[in-house]
């Protein structure tokens, strides 16, 4: 069953907070839900499908639907890390196409900034986690599992720290127009490469922000979307994939976007050259570069040249990427960047991005998410969305 034009995004909301010391995670979920439903012109009583990832508080979807007063006939708590929310959009479209729900609500929230999480501590997920024994106790933290991929990309393809820095520069040029962005000051290539090393070759400014907050999306049946007040955004194609260590011989040169991207483009019947705006998961600069290659925006190994010289700056370069400032400058709520990637693509397709970064005649957008660790195992999801 193709998902092409089987569901629409009718509501989207990014929580304006970046530091929520006095709010619970459940409260943030509920505020995001309210914001997205208000945006769509719907109410909690209209929701009959609910989606959250495995990090939702309490017993996940059971606690959240109880907390928010939702009576769902379909729930899904698929967790593929930061890419979960793209997977949820695709799964919501499947459920709608199968008649299992009509109005699907997807929420994300978290408070890693208040909790003091930085991603530099080797954190495990318990003694039963398969990788706990073989990476984490021996010094692997989140940053270094991306740094290894960056180091290998440099070794294999001659990519430079300055090329990676251009990805951050583009994000900062967009974030200066976003009043809610955590980092609003434009930076230069030199600023990035002279910032402290976190895990070689990734510097502090190659890393995303740590922020509290969240977001929500409402996915509905196309017939319903046409009767709501907001400009319609329609799902054209979706793909999801996982990549792991491949039996202990991890290949660091590519991500699972190679597979999720191909599936999404095939379903949508479009090409990378048709895409007017792209939200690309930016946990680190290297994440963007590798995904752009794997999605086919440029050849493998050419990513460094592709992103250089302002190429990702809206109105300046060849492809506008992350015009809200992305995770690198704007927001990375709950250490999961997929939700905000979808929301900025919706803004672009509605023509509601900041005028300084709005892509002219933005009719087709791509959303790319990864979750987990680029250097070991991760999930990837790709959405292709059209205006109207």
């Amino acid at each position, binding site marked *: 069953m193709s998902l092409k034009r089987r569901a629409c995004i009718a509501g989207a909301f990014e929580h304006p907070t970046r530091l929520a010391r006095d709010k619970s995670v459940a409260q943030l979920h509920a505020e995001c839900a309210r914001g997205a439903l208000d945006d769509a012109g719907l109410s909690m009583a209209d929701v009959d499908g609910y989606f959250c990832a495995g990090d939702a508080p309490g017993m996940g979807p059971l606690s959240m639907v109880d907390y928010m007063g939702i009576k769902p006939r379909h729930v899904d708590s698929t967790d593929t890390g930061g890419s979960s929310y793209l997977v949820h959009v695709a799964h919501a479209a499947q459920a709608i196409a199968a008649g299992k729900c009509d109005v699907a609500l997807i929420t994300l929230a978290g408070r890693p900034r208040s909790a003091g999480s930085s991603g530099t501590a080797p954190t495990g997920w318990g003694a039963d986690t398969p990788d706990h*024994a073989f990476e984490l*106790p021996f*010094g692997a*933290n989140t940053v270094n599992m991306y740094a290894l991929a960056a*180091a290998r990309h440099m070794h294999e393809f001659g990519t430079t720290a300055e090329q990676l820095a251009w990805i951050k520069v583009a994000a900062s040029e967009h974030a200066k127009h976003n009043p809610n962005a955590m980092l609003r000051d434009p930076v230069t290539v030199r600023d990035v490469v002279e910032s402290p090393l976190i*895990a070689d070759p990734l510097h502090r400014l190659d890393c995303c922000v740590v922020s509290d907050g969240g977001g929500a999306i409402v996915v509905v049946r196309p017939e319903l979307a046409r009767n709501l007040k907001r400009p319609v955004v329609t799902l054209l194609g979706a793909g999801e994939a996982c990549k*792991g260590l*491949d039996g*202990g011989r*991890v290949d660091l040169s590519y991500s699972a976007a190679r597979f999720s991207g191909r599936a999404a483009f095939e379903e949508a019947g479009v090409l990378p050259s048709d895409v007017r705006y792209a939200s690309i998961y930016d946990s680190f600069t290297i994440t963007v570069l590798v995904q752009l290659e794997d999605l086919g925006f440029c050849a493998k190994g050419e990513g460094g040249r592709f992103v250089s010289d302002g190429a990702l700056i809206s109105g300046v370069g060849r492809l506008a990427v992350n015009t809200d400032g992305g995770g690198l400058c704007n927001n990375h709520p709950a250490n999961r960047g997929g939700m905000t990637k979808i929301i900025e693509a919706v803004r672009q397709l509605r023509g509601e991005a900041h005028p300084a970064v709005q892509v002219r005649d933005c009719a087709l957008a791509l959303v790319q998410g990864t979750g987990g660790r680029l250097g070991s195992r991760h999930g990837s999801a790709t959405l292709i969305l059209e205006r109207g």
Partner: protein
Amino acid sequence: MSRPPALERSIASVDGRTALFASHCRGCGRVLFPVGSVCAQCGGADLDRQALSPTGSVFAWTAVHRAAPGWKVPYVVALVDFPEGPRIFAQVDAAPEAMRSGMPVRVAFGRPPAGQPDDAYYFTVEPS
């Protein structure tokens, strides 16, 4: 953090030295680290155990400059290719300046350079 229980089957003595052990899949021939019960390539369960060579070569490495309290920074971590096939992650007892891709390293056991965990395997630089 002490050595994880799941590693006990992957560290043992052979020919008077302590060695890393891997699983060899009789079905597809894949050599998998650590010793497991399912082949990650073909899903087969007919596995036997074999010792890995004491040396391998660096596939990719990074120096970690920000870590949790109690970890001595900078410390180097690497993915190391063993001749039998597995690509294994661990710390390296070397200065960042001494590191390069392809360099030979040797497996060692005990407390690694970052000082954590207290019992692990790690790599030392092997004269090339």
